[in-house]
């Protein structure tokens, strides 16, 4: 099997053309990139606001929990039936699904900032925006990044599934391959999307490592309440502490 797969993946013919690997990979990246950008633009400022003012928390937490319980295949099929076949509604669905992990992580990150540091900052004469930008944001950064990583993985997965409702991308190989019981094609798709996911995750892990202050590096393993918080209010991402 492995030998066949390797031949399949490395033959240049399979990389070219409108159904070639190159095109599909690019498509997949576009879907993921687009959804993440828009989701971030919406969820990040909102998360900062909720975290800083501590208002709207219940709504945010409930929204996150609800989105986690809904199967993406069900959502995608529903959306498409509702608004007709076409890429736009699916992309909107992808974007909406990427919002909760980022929102949750940002809000949790800001809430997790040492209250003493925030009081001290205010008391020393920082304006509210300065408190957010110079203190809350940098300290919340590790969690924000973990939210982005989580959202990325989720979007890569959902975009793969979305091939079922006529989206392009690497999921095409799985869906189309399944339709004609062509296992090589399915496996190729599965491997490529796995590699894509792993690569993106590594890139993000690197970005985290480069942008987070060394003073924050130990993060995470200290007290019980934090571990519990990670699973009830945050998502399933393996913490960057491993990387």
């Amino acid at each position, binding site marked *: 099997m492995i030998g066949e797969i390797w031949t399949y993946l490395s033959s240049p013919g399979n990389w070219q053309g409108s159904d070639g690997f190159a095109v599909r990979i690019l498509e997949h990246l576009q879907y993921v990139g687009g959804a993440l950008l828009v989701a971030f633009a919406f969820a990040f400022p909102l998360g900062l606001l909720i975290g800083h003012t501590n208002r709207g928390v219940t709504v945010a937490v409930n929204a996150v929990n609800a989105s986690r319980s809904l*199967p993406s295949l069900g959502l995608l*099929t529903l959306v498409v039936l509702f608004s007709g076949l076409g890429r736009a509604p699916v992309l909107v669905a992808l974007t909406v699904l990427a919002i909760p992990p980022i929102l949750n992580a940002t809000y949790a990150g800001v809430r997790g900032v040492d209250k003493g540091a925030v009081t001290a900052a205010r008391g020393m004469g920082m304006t509210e925006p300065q408190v957010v930008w110079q203190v809350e944001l940098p300290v919340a950064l590790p969690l924000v990044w973990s939210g982005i990583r989580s959202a990325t993985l989720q979007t890569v997965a959902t975009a793969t599934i979305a091939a079922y409702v006529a989206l392009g991308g690497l999921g095409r190989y799985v869906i189309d391959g*399944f339709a004609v019981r062509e296992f090589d094609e399915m496996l190729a798709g599965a491997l490529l999307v796995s590699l894509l996911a792993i690569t993106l995750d590594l890139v993000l892990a690197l970005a985290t490592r480069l942008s987070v202050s060394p003073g924050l590096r130990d993060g995470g*393993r200290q007290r*019980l309440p934090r*571990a519990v918080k990670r*699973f009830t209010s945050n998502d*399933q991402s*393996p913490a960057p502490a491993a990387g």
Partner: protein
Amino acid sequence: MDWGWIVDNRDLITGLLIEHIWLSAIPVVIGLALALVLGVLAHTYRWTYPPLLVIVGVLYTIPSLALFIVLPVVLGTQILNPINIVIALTIYSGALLVRTVVDGLDAVPPAVRKAADGLGYKRLPRIVTVELPIAIPVIVAGLRVVTVANISMVSVGALIGIGGLGELFTSGFQIRFMTEIVVGLVLSLLLAVSADLLLVYLQRKTTPWDRLGATA
């Protein structure tokens, strides 16, 4: 919404629901058992933890659909065999839960560990009868997330022909019948909520000391 259809097909729907419950529950239970064993090992022999985390990290990163396909190839089973979903989800759940188990054990106050040692506990009995119970809240928190994730992921199996509520989505989509999809969504949601409540109830039952005061 076609209510008539629901009534007419309640056997089918119930069948799919039951199938879905099995397909989600078994991986969680076996995954938990695996995670407990591996977690206790990783917690005790600390040097095994970092490599374990790397493997877990990779498994977690791979999208579920891809995992359902790659795993059979690695294991040598048929791709379309339902057993693959169970195995894949078991590995996936176990991977996520190992981390939780270790976190939970780590969070046990060192004073408790020392006291148990001082009382004469040997290492393994101490971990199993003293530390694990204390770690229950953390473990259950992780279990809740993993269970809900499992329930969602089983429906993805419908894309490669394996059953559960996911079939309502694919079938409904193919014949453009929204009712079927909505039924699938509602049932999934109810299942997720019930499972969550069940776990919370179990946690309360097994940790009576927790409600009496603040935890650590």
